[in-house]
């Protein structure tokens, strides 16, 4: 495979894809997280779950008005896909049957708290299935750009936006860094090849430990 320069979002998606294991049931949020499906390592096949009631999201081959993804966009299905109702969909999500979910974030903090569903007075899209996903999925991976558009940090000591879930995040992946959320707090596990510890430190408000085995990605 020829090496091509990836844009920021693709780089994040590409790194997250390495966290998924063959056979996993995975729920990808709208936006950046959806891209993760494009970067699965060879030999890794995952089944994608959609909140609106199916397992086996696939490429769109023809538009079927009865087949959309959780964003309401035309979707396809893979061979072996299974359909069900919203009730069963959340039995799966809340019951720990989803191995990993990848979601975007407005803010994450060093306690693993996540805020991604509203900005009071400005934007209230609603939580949709996100609050269920973060308490139910075995692994909650946040994929987002490291800082907000105005440069302000998104990885904070404490979220100040309304939470989606409390102590729910397992991993944060940005274009600069990979953090895991542990009992001891955030651990910086990896930094990207074109950054350095100093830059990450400057762009991150949260306290974190630098892993002894810090890697580059």
């Amino acid at each position, binding site marked *: 495979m020829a090496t091509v320069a990836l844009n920021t979002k693709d780089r994040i998606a590409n790194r997250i894809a390495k966290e998924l294991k063959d056979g996993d049931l995975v729920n990808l949020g709208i936006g950046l997280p959806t891209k993760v499906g494009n970067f699965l390592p060879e030999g890794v096949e995952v089944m994608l779950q959609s909140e609106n009631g199916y397992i086996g999201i696939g490429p769109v081959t023809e538009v079927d008005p009865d087949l959309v993804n959780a964003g309401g966009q035309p979707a396809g299905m893979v061979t072996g896909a299974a359909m069900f109702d*919203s009730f069963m969909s959340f039995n799966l999500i809340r019951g720990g049957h989803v191995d990993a979910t990848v979601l975007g974030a407005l803010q994450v903090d060093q306690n693993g708290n996540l805020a991604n569903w509203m900005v009071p007075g400005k934007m209230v899209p609603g939580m949709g299935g996100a609050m269920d996903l973060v308490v139910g999925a075995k692994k909650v991976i946040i994929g987002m750009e490291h800082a907000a558009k105005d440069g302000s940090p998104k990885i904070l000591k404490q979220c100040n936006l309304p939470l989606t879930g409390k102590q729910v995040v397992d991993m944060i992946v940005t274009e600069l860094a990979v953090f895991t959320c542990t009992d001891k707090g955030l651990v910086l596990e990896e930094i990207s090849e074109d950054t350095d510890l100093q830059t990450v430190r400057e762009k991150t408000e949260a306290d974190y430990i630098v892993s002894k085995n810090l890697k580059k990605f």
Partner: protein
Amino acid sequence: MEKVISMEELPQYYSDGMSVMVGGFMGVGQPIEIVKNMVEKQVKDLTLICNDTAVPDLGVGTLVVNKQLKKAIVSHIGTNPETGKQMIAEELDVELVPQGSLAERIRAGGAGLGGVLTPTGVGTVVEEGKVKMNVEGKEYILETPLRADVALLKAHKADKAGNLVYRLTGRNFNPMMALAADMVIAEVEELVEVGELEPDEIMTPGVLVDKIVVCGKGE
């Protein structure tokens, strides 16, 4: 016990101020034609229970734009800016419910339960004003039942006894809503004779469905 009615007979089941569950997820699996009829008839002060408020020009989204709602109990309003606008202007009372908890509350309402304990929303604004309980060391929120005066479903096929079959992601909230309203009306694409649906293929038993309106595939 004739269940099949025409769109013209439908308005007798509408009343201003009623609560109404509407199946569908972003308009898919939604009884679009019945909703159009409700817009036409200007039924008002509705309490809508639905997954979302769709988009401004589709399904329940048009009820929002047309200011026919008093309250919306939904999990998502982001795709219909009009909902947020009316909410901020305090013209519309919006109760945002996590999608899984919405499904649970509707099912609890339809199944005679007093509620369910869910971990969803613990530590968030969702828990405000709700009973919390600790079961075996884990915190849960008690989510209470939802019912409505009328449920409006969308099915792919119905037989004349009201047995329903949904198609692909058109299923979503429809089967649960069939349990949780005093009057259940289904918009269907295709009507078949009783016996044409396999017993194992039926997704909503006909006893739950009061009325059927045959609308074809819609637009």
